[in-house]
């Protein structure tokens, strides 16, 4: 049951940059213009059947288009990030042919204004670039709420897209259907907890190639 809603908000932050600048040698057209696209994806269902992993492939997502990509295109640059259960992969290294990269920083999404120039990691067979427990989420174990995957609201994943050309920032808002409040008895109780493996995330992508500005 795929319940995918995309809310695009286009911000043309630097639309007025051209005004005073008309030097013929550089050319107004060459000045890079920051154009940031902010989207929220709700309830992306990414099931994982541990008993039968083959039956549940990753759900591939293209941040540039904001769309889910068919699993048949796994061996292409057409996707940037993939989801399956609590595993999140990027299109690079051991996970795909692309040139994606990731840094995870402990800064809230809204406060990240620029992507770092270096430090990007790729998936390896040993370790995914997007760290699970302690990375994008905390598994609560015997804590309260018990045995829950609590996404970190102050962790931001900064990505390079699979084509290596765009920077983006992303925050996983929830692993549960409907992005529920973690601080309720309804969530703490397994009988009333919403279904897991439903990702809600927001991201902002710099549409201008090579620009690191994210805000």
């Amino acid at each position, binding site marked *: 049951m795929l319940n995918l809603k995309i809310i695009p908000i286009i911000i043309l932050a630097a639309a007025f940059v051209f005004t005073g600048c008309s030097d013929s040698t550089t050319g107004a057209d060459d000045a890079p213009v920051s154009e940031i696209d902010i989207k929220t994806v709700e309830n992306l269902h990414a099931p994982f059947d541990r008993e039968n992993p083959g039956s549940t492939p990753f759900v591939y997502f293209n941040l540039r288009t904001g769309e889910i990509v068919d699993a048949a295109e796994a061996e292409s640059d057409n996707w940037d990030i993939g989801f399956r259960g609590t595993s999140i992969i990027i299109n690079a290294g051991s996970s795909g042919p692309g040139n994606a990269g990731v*840094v*995870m920083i402990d800064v809230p999404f809204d406060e*990240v204004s620029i992507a770092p120039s270096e430090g990007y990691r790729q998936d390896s067979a*040993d370790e995914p670039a997007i760290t699970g427990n302690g990375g994008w989420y*905390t598994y609560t174990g015997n804590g*309260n709420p018990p045995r829950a995957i*609590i996404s970190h609201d102050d962790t931001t994943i900064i990505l390079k897209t699979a084509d290596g050309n765009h920077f983006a920032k992303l925050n996983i808002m929830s692993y549960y259907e409907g992005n529920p409040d973690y601080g*309720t008895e309804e969530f703490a109780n397994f009988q009333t907890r919403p279904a897991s493996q439903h990702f809600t995330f927001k991201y902002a992508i710099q549409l201008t190639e090579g620009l690191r500005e994210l805000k």
Partner: protein
Amino acid sequence: MSRVAAITSSFILVIAIASPLKAQIIHGFIMNDEGEPLADVHVAVENSAVSTVSNESGLFRLQLENGSQESVSLLLSRIGYQTDFIKVDLSEPQSKPLTITLKQKIYRSEAVVVTATRTQQDIENVSIPVSVVTGEEMHKTGSMRLSDILSEQTGMQIVSDHGTGVQIQGFDPDYTLIMIDGSPVIGRTAGTLDLSRISVRNVEQIEIVKGPSSALWGSDALAGVVNIITKRATEELSGGITTRYGKNNTLDLSGDFSLNKFGVNSHIFGNLNSSAGYRLNPGVVSQTVPEFNNVTIGYRGDTRLSDQFEISGNIRWFRESQQNRSIVNNQSGEAELLNSDNFRSDFMGSGEVKFTPANRFNLTMSWITNHYGTESELSFAATDQLYSRSAFNQTFNQPEFKAAYRWSDSQKTLAGMGAIFEQVDAERFPGQPSFTTQFLFTQHSWSLSQNFEVTGGIRYDSHSEYSSQLSPKISTRYRVSDWIQFRASAGRGFKAPDFRQLFLDFTNTTAGYSVFGSSTVVEGIERQRTEGAIDQILIPLDSLNEIRAESSWALNTGFDIDPTPNLRFRMNLFRNNVSDLIETAPVARLTNGQSVFTYFNVDEVYTQGAEAEFRLRFAEQIDASLGYQYLDAQRRVERERILQDDQGELVQQTNVSFEPMFNRSRHSGNFSIFYESNNGWGANLRGLFRGRFGLFDRNGNGFVDSNELEPGYTVWNAALTRRVGKLATIQAGADNIFNYININQPFLAGRLWYAQVSISF
């Protein structure tokens, strides 16, 4: 009644001897309000060095230095009683003994406690914080289970985690030792010993010691000790029944019978307790508290075989069955209803022989044997087919040998040694692991004066599975004057790693990870390595340190002030530094990408706070009390964070801070007022307040943020009692009168009314 006759006859004897000695001798009898003789009353002649102490029959005899005065003033003092002056006329020969009645102070002092020092001691003379809940108080409040009565004590916060436990000085229930007549109660689930297992209907008193007591009691006595002292036969023949019925179809039926004949004291007790349970969350098929019924049977007996030998024995058996429902998702993802049947049983037995070869010396040999077991069965409601079955069994045996020697009136020593044999039998602990603890302890008390005492003790525990423990403790009290007394204690407490932490051998077949206890990890990883499942070992196995017990150093200091005989103010300040708290961490990576976890000593915590209590009596009929606890409990949190500099480049930062812990209320308190009329009516009103506390970790950072606080609440309980005739008492009451319901506090059932009838003879 026969005792009074004996005292009277001994008087006559004293008079007969005393009368020829004329006025230089003063003799008398001292008793309390209830006519019981009072021992240890200090009787001093004013402006002279002459003094004496009353004996066990309350009698004293004073010889004056010379007979020239016409009268003297006697100063009578005893701890726990109001000091009294009496004038004695010496001009005429004393023809009969003086009869003096001393009045008790507000803080009832007949309480003799054993938990603080393992010797009988007047509560007023104990140098560590001890409080006593009397059987009378439990009766007046209609308490059925241990959790009911502990919830109303200052500094005791009831919390729910796989059972109803008690938080003391900010410690989880795991860290409080619960005992019945000095025998530890076993059988914890996720660290919590469910206090609703223990009926308090046949209880003489409950002694609560706060602060670490491992120097005497060993493991688990880290936050404190709750020792339940059951009734002992004192009269020749006595007994009673109590029955209570209340909301949720809750029935409690208790009976006890005591016989003290042919030199044997016997007390038999039985309790039946059942309830339909209740549901706080209507959206869930499981009841919050399931339907249950349980039975408790106990026997306590003792006899004196000769002047030198005493033997005593104690047996207690409990069994409970619970019925509940739950759901499970079947392979096609559909929810199916399950019926669950849970049983738990608890057997405790102990025997003791006390040998007193000389007046100042005694030896005690004892054996404690405990068995706790649970059985759980889940079956499909539709087909009655079995879904799963599990069982857990735990045994505990403790032989102990103890010697006590009184060197002089001011010095006494206690020393002991023993062993604990434990075994656990459950699926998750393959091979029925068993383990042994050997221990030695000693304690010395020195009364430098009647007002100044120091007690020091130390215990050594050597365990087959984890590091040895040395637990010292020193405490002192100093009575500055009649109305103020200070006390201070410092000591160490520990909690042994639990079964999981030692012996777990668990692989989650669906997720693919494994968890091993510290005693099974090396063997478990070797096994997985030969199976080819290990990808990488993160921590070399030979560098894994032996696991240590969780331990704490604590300081407690406080004072009692009695400005008037009817008012007492008691205060205690505490600080606990806890280290080596046990957490899981990965030790190896499996070829399937999952990890192997084991247990490490990592966490640090501190708790500190203050506890204050006012007790007030007016008009002899009203007792009021007000209690308050301030608590600050913080956990050490080490965070490695990746941040950005001005250019957006990555910077790594490590910060260590102490952050608030979950489920701790900074403020909590209680209020109570008890009224007792002369014509058989009694009434009481009790209020319990719990301040804000963190409950759900909304952001997974492991500590309480300001947006994670749940609101505080107050619960009011009341009861009305009427004595009918000489034998019967009827009672009606309501707990949680204003029907406070919080789904997160499952032990609060909403408003509960009840009626109770008790008959005693």
